[in-house]
Structures are given as C-alpha cells and as structure tokens.
C-alpha cells in the first residue's frame, strides 16, 4: 500500500534490449546482482531462457531505478501481447501477417475450433518477477475481448446459420469472448493468484474499437474475474472513453481504470477533461493516469507531468484516486528515451504532491 499521493506504475511492455544494450545498462541499473551468478561464457552466448531472464531482471531493475512504485518485467518473455497469449491456447491457427501501419505488421490468429487453455500462462514470469522485484508488482494480461477482437473467427461464426451479417457476427463474437474469459482467462488468473499475484491489469486496448460493444468488454471482464480475489484494473488506450461510458462502469471487480490521456493532451485539446465523467457518474475507482505520450520521443518535463496530475485531480475531485503511469507500454521508444520519460514522470508525480494534503495519511 502506497502511503504517498500519486504513486507511479508502469503499464506494459518495454523494448527488448540486445546483449550489447544489456551490458551497457548493467552499469546504470545493476541488474546482474539480482541473479544467481552467471558465468561469463554464458553471458557472452546465452541460451533463450537465460536471455529472457537477463531481460526480465534488467526491466525490473530499470523500472525500479527510474523510481516507480509498481513494476513488472517489461513483458520480456512475450512476443507481444496478442500472439504470446494465443499460443498458450488450442483452437487457433496463424495464417500470415496483417499490416498495422506502414511497414509494421502483426500476426493475427484464426480461431478454427472451440478455444481452450493448454496450461495457465505467465506463471513462470510472475514467479521470476516476484522473486527479483523489490518494488510492488502489477501483472499485465491481455483481456478476452481484445483477444477475440484481434482474431479472425471461423469457428464461432461458422456456427451461425446463413449469411454472416452483422447480427450473426455479433452473436458469434459474444460466444467467443465468453469462452475466452471462462476457459482461458479465469483459470489462468486463478493460478496466478494462487502464486501470490495480487495486482492484475487486464489489457483491453481493443475496447475502443467498437464502442457499441462496450457491454461485451464488460461481460468478458466480469466472466474472467468472477469469484477471484485480486486487485484488478482495466487498461484501455486510444479510445473515446466517453463512448464507452457508462457501460464500462458495470465491470464489477475492476478497481482501477488505467487509461491513456497524454496522447490527446496537445494543441489546445484537454486530454483529461473526460475524467469529469467519472465524477459525474460517482465512480469511486482509482485512475491510472497516462501522463507520457508513448508514441513521441519528445520528453515530457516534470512540470508538465505535475500539471497534468493536478488537472486530473481537480476533475476527479479526489487526488488520492490517482496513480501516475505512461499512456501505454513504452515498447516503441528506445530504452534511453523511455527511461528519461519515466524519470520525468516520477519527478513530476513528486512535484505534484507539493501543495496537497495527503488524504492517504
């Protein structure tokens, strides 16, 4: 439990460093000392498992050195947030790459059979983080709605009779999301909790893609978390949050909204104004406040971060509800830029505390 106002946290992935970059960063964040001794010859040519451990230990130390209150491993063991998760399941096939933008692509799976879990996942990585982190931990996991939305559906859609129009697609999607939530997410979350995981961020970046499906985002969240005891948050980014409200408020076990704001806080637009809606709906959950634009190298200053935090506190009417974080994962930024941004974020959060009575005390 953080006793200071505006505690800081990460949101997700970091760039995966090369061996050379790891060597350079060792001098700055001293992550090797957290691991059992690794012989020099292994460090020169690590196998995949050792490299993943090195990267995970690095990310933990990196985030802690930047001063964050809650950390994880930068998703060092995951290809990315979709494919890694889908590869822990049965029922999917991959058919090739899809363009995300320009010359950036991702692999999108096709569900060809009813989804099922091969084995609960993220356990090994969580155990590693739990063993090596000194700060508090928050585990990110991709949510059922996003997994479904980012997949092609053959199995569930084929079960719908006749022409596959919008009503048939919607019915198939609902079946798909609920299956993912019940058969994949819930047993995985259950095991993570048994391993000691207390704070879990369910990532639903696809939630804003189809605003009229916000009730299905919530249904997936509720099905995944039903009967589980942990501190759940929901991360959504690049969305018009006003279009998702009030439907999202029905996510019963969600205790924090971790949203992106800084990206849209520019050129005269107030990116944080939408927070007023939470106050209007009398929503009492905390907010993971995105204060770093993860798509630009431009560094936010501590003063800008502090101003954003104070502005958000005013809109929410309660500064104790704010956690401070980047808009999203910092994977697209270099480690140098990401670190400088995180340092500015931590300094900005500290700056924002001045002048506030701390209601947490």
């Amino acid at each position, binding site marked *: 439990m953080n006793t200071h106002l505006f505690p800081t946290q990460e949101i997700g992935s970091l760039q995966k460093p090369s061996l050379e970059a790891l060597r350079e960063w060792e001098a700055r964040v001293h992550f090797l000392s957290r691991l059992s001794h690794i012989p020099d010859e292994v460090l020169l040519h690590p196998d995949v498992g050792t490299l993943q451990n090195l990267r995970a230990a690095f990310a933990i130390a990196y985030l802690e050195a930047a001063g964050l209150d809650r950390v994880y491993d930068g998703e060092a063991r995951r290809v990315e947030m979709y494919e890694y998760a889908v590869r822990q399941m049965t029922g999917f096939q991959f058919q090739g790459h899809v363009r995300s933008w320009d010359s950036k692509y991702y692999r999108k799976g096709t569900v060809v059979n009813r989804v099922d879990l091969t084995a609960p996942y993220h356990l090994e990585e969580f155990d590693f983080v739990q063993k090596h982190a000194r700060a508090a931990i928050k585990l990110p996991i991709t949510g059922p709605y996003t997994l479904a939305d980012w997949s092609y559906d*053959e199995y569930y859609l084929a079960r719908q009779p006749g022409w596959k129009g919008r009503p048939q697609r919607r019915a198939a999607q609902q079946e798909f999301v609920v299956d993912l939530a019940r058969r994949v997410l819930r047993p995985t979350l259950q095991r993570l909790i048994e391993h000691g995981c207390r704070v879990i961020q369910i990532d639903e970046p696809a939630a804003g893609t189809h605003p009229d499906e916000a009730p299905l985002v919530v249904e997936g969240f509720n099905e995944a978390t039903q009967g589980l005891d942990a501190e759940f948050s929901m991360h959504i980014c690049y969305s018009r949050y006003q279009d998702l409200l009030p439907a999202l408020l029905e996510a019963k076990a969600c205790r924090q909204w971790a949203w992106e704001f800084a990206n849209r806080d520019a050129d005269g637009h107030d990116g944080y104004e939408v927070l007023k809606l939470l106050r209007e709906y009398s929503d009492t959950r905390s907010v993971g406040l995105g204060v770093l634009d993860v798509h630009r190298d431009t560094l936010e200053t501590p003063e800008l971060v502090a101003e954003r935090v104070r502005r958000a506190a005013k809109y929410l009417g309660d500064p104790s509800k704010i956690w401070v974080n980047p808009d999203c994962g910092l994977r697209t930024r270099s480690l140098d830029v990401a670190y400088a941004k995180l340092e500015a974020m931590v300094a900005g959060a500290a700056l924002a505390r001045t002048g506030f009575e701390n209601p947490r005390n």
Partner: protein
Amino acid sequence: MTTSPPIFAGLTSPFPRPERLIAATRDLDRGRTTPELAEKTFVEAETELLALEERLFTNVTAGYFRWNDLFRPIAETWGGFTVGPLTRWLETNTFFRQPILSSTPHRAAGAFAARLPPPLTSRAAVARVLLPGPYTFAKILENRSGDSELQTALTLGRLLGEEVRELHGSGFHVFQFSDPMLVTDPPEPPADESVVQAYRSISNAVPAATTIVWTFGAGAGPALPLLDRLPVSVVGIDLTDTEPETLRPGPERLGLGLGIIDPRTTLAESLDDTVGVVREALRRRPSASVWLGPGAPLDLLPARPAEQKLLRLSDVRHTLLREGVG
C-alpha cells in the same frame, strides 16, 4: 423477359502485401536490404496480383501495395498538408497517419498520378483508381487551415475533380471514392448538401468518367437518402454490414456496388448464401449495373486468405452471370 444488369467485379481497396513483400519492407526498414531489391519485390507482387485480377475481374488495381494508407498519397503531395500522428482507422486494429491541413489545400499536377501502381499506367482503361471520398477526408484530417469542415469538403471535392480530370486525360475511366464515414457518421443537414456539392465538383470535372462512392463500416440503409442524391455513377454499400431489408429502390441512373466479401474473417463466404444475399439486395433495389467487391478494405486480411476470397468473389459474379440475378 427482363434483362440482367451488367455485373462488374474488382478490388475496392489496397490488397494485403504478400508475405515476401512484408519481409522485404521489414528488411528495408531495418537496413537489411536495398531499396532496389525491395522495389523488385514490389514489382513482382504487383505483376502477380495484376495477372490474377485480369483473370478474375472486370477492373484491376495492381494492389496499391506501395500506399501506406488511403490518405498518404495526397497528404504527401498536395500543398497545405503535412503527415501527422498515427490514428485508428475506423473500427479496426490498423492505423493511418492523420493528415494535418495547415492552409487551404492545393494540388501539384502529376504528383498523385505518380503514386499510382506503375503497372496501372498501361492498363488505364480497365484500372480502378482509388481516392479518398471528400467527406471522410475532411472529417479525419486535423484541420488547422481556418476553413470549416464543410468548406474543406467542398475544396477537397474540387481538387479531387481536378485529379479525375488529369487522370482521365491519361486514359483512366473508373474512379472509386472511399467514403465510409457517409455511413458510419452521416452528415446532418445542411452539411449533407455540401457533400452533394463536393461530389458534383467531381462528376462535373469529367461527366463521362465512372465515379463510384464506396461505403463500409456500418449499415448503409439510413444513409441511402443522401447516397441517392450524390451525382455519381455507382453507390457502393457493404452488405456484410447492411441488412438487405433496409434497402429501397434508388434512382434508375445509379449503379449499385455491393460489398459481399468480409475481411474481418478468414472464413470463406458461402457461394449460395452470397449469391442469395446479392439477389435479395437487387430484388429490393433494382439497379442499372452491379459492382461486386469486398466490403471493407481487404488488406485487413493476410494475403493468402484474401486470395481465396478473391476466387469466391469471382465465383459469385460468374454464378450470377450464368444463372441471372432474379
């Protein structure tokens, strides 16, 4: 005896890059290959797709593989524009660079034409030129020009008309304007009249050209009263999003574009179901001509399943030609 309308078919968007082209563009980004080798892969991909299109369809595109998004060829070549931040493309997990309009736009002669797939130049008579529709274009850009959105739509319509005139002079005849926001976020009066005027600028530029407005992303039923007023040759709607029962008869002059291939799923469309829904649509809205194609952009799929869907699209056309639309 009733006569069947002519049935055309073709791509309505860029085609997904084949895997080897994906590898080449990635390698180019990472400095692992040369621009010359990447260019060779582009040419091979264009040539192969063009051959397939010529075998299957009435119109060809050569894939528009080089375009990064629908707006970039204009945002990078017309005056007044710069290229802005990544922005989500409608309800998809793909992104475009938002054009930023800082002053009244103006075009540079020949600049857009130079962005067309090179093989189209020698197939101009059967090529389909893709362009952004003026309404969607005006809505998605960051407008710092000082002009209103409506004024900007009118200006864009005039400039798009100039592009059509120039390209028609080079032998191109078929121009498709992708304007999904006409159905996802339809204009209310009096803005709708500006949209009509913008399209009038386009059609007046070359009355003999075939102009297609292509919509997708939502049911077209509620927008049909406006779509029917547009002075274009063909109105295209996405049948995978539009309930056939929401269709109504339209002006006799208008052809009907039908999006019958769904790029949101790799599941192959059933031939019988697809032929059936086309017939149902034409029963409710008899049309002077029929233009079949994918509904939403086909580059939401990987290349291989997209190719399979092209074959199905061709099958549907040939079934309708053989057995009639009634």
